[in-house]
């Protein structure tokens, strides 16, 4: 047995899970699908006295259209999101981002909420949530609150959730207009964390002008990043006048903590990131025009 000993708790409701988190304090950690947490425990990069397993909390699982948003329960697996017709029609970028997450065996266990709460800057769902202005619903023994994605990601593997708060679901805005989406990543092998990646959404008006644009960046900062300067620069312009390379370049401007490791320097990742944005832009804007 490689992980350090811990006490195991398996609540059946979100309220019970929240009560446990409040009672157990800082020594407790939520266990969702465990596809990031269990390796960290096995390598003893993380040690907790208590694990609160939310895998048996059925109210945390589900996919539901609620007006102009798609609500996805935090405990919903990647595999279920990947296969969902509801997700494909309401938030297609989630469907396209999901196959980039690990391998199918990982996606059978990993959950949306686990990925968002883990807040890895190289992960797909945090970047999608940030780019689309998703809303995170959290609960604690003191009550619930909703956190906008822009206020949620705080740093490497850190969010603005309190230790006693539990992520229960995420609401993704549904884009109803002429829109297109694309996800592009460069990884050394399929399923590895990307060296750099980009998520692009484009919505056009009837005159082919850019009504809105969302650009999320993967693996290009200490936390999930959004290329707001590039989004602002293209807003209102005719889509045919926008060069993909220009969008890619603008998206890299102002990035301050591009990581560097043995797979690539910060300069290399920035060049790759610009190209990923450019490719995703090309595909997303083409899809929007064809709609």
């Amino acid at each position: 047995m490689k992980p350090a000993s811990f006490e195991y708790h398996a609540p059946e409701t979100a309220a019970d899970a929240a009560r446990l988190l409040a009672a157990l304090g800082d020594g407790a950690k939520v266990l969702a699908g465990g596809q990031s947490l269990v390796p960290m425990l096995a390598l003893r990069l993380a040690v907790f006295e208590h694990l609160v397993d939310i895998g048996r909390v059925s109210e945390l699982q589900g996919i539901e259209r609620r007006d102009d948003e798609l609500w996805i329960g935090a405990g919903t697996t990647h595999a279920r999101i990947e296969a969902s017709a509801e997700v494909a029609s309401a938030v297609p970028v989630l469907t396209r981002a999901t196959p980039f997450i690990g391998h199918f065996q990982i996606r059978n266990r990993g959950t949306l909420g686990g990925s968002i709460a883990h807040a890895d800057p190289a992960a797909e769902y945090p970047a999608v949530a940030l780019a689309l202005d998703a809303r995170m619903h959290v609960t604690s023994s003191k009550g619930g609150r909703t956190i906008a994605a822009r206020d949620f990601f705080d740093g490497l593997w850190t969010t603005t959730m309190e230790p006693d708060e539990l992520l229960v679901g995420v609401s993704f805005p549904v884009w109803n207009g002429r829109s297109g989406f694309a996800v592009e990543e460069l990884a050394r092998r399929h399923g590895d964390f990307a060296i750099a990646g980009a998520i692009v959404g484009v919505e056009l008006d009837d005159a082919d002008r850019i009504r809105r644009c969302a650009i999320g960046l993967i693996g290009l900062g200490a936390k999930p990043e959004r290329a707001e300067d590039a989004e602002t620069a293209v807003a209102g312009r005719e889509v045919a006048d926008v060069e993909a390379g220009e969008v890619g370049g603008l998206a890299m401007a102002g990035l301050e903590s591009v990581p560097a490791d043995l797979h690539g320097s910060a300069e290399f990742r920035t060049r790759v990131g610009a190209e990923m944005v450019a490719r995703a832009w090309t595909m997303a804007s083409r899809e929007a025009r064809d709609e």
Partner: protein
Amino acid sequence: MSEVSVEVTVNGRRLRETVEPRLTLADFLRDRCRLTGTHLGCEHGVCGACTVLVNGAAVRSCLMFAVQADGAEVTTVEGISSPDDGLSTVQAAFRDCHGLQCGFCTPGFVVSVTAFLRDHPSPTDAQIREALSGTLCRCTGYQGIFRAVRQAATTGPRAERS
């Protein structure tokens, strides 16, 4: 730390055991159930050798605690074929196509490919490569493994056991 009682159905046999919560499903299968066909390579979710089916879904048994499998049905490589039934279609294809050499990674491949072909009976080459990407082999190389999956998909599953 307090031990927890779990009840798991493994290859059709129901078992009740008391375990430490930190015992992974992989260690539970190997040490408690004596089903050593499930191999442990990296023990942190990278190599895929420990893949088993939990309620039909292929998962890494090293990234799951046995307590999380309470009430679940688990199928290991030992449960893919029954002793009187010989090799499954997938296993036979791996033998025919030189899809294994030392055999360490093979249980993970066989279990993963069995689940994959159940869900994708007529896969494209790209789908096969993607499905294989989650399991590492360090000696055969992947061409024989790829051919084995292609052959198993073409042969189709054997007739249901009576």
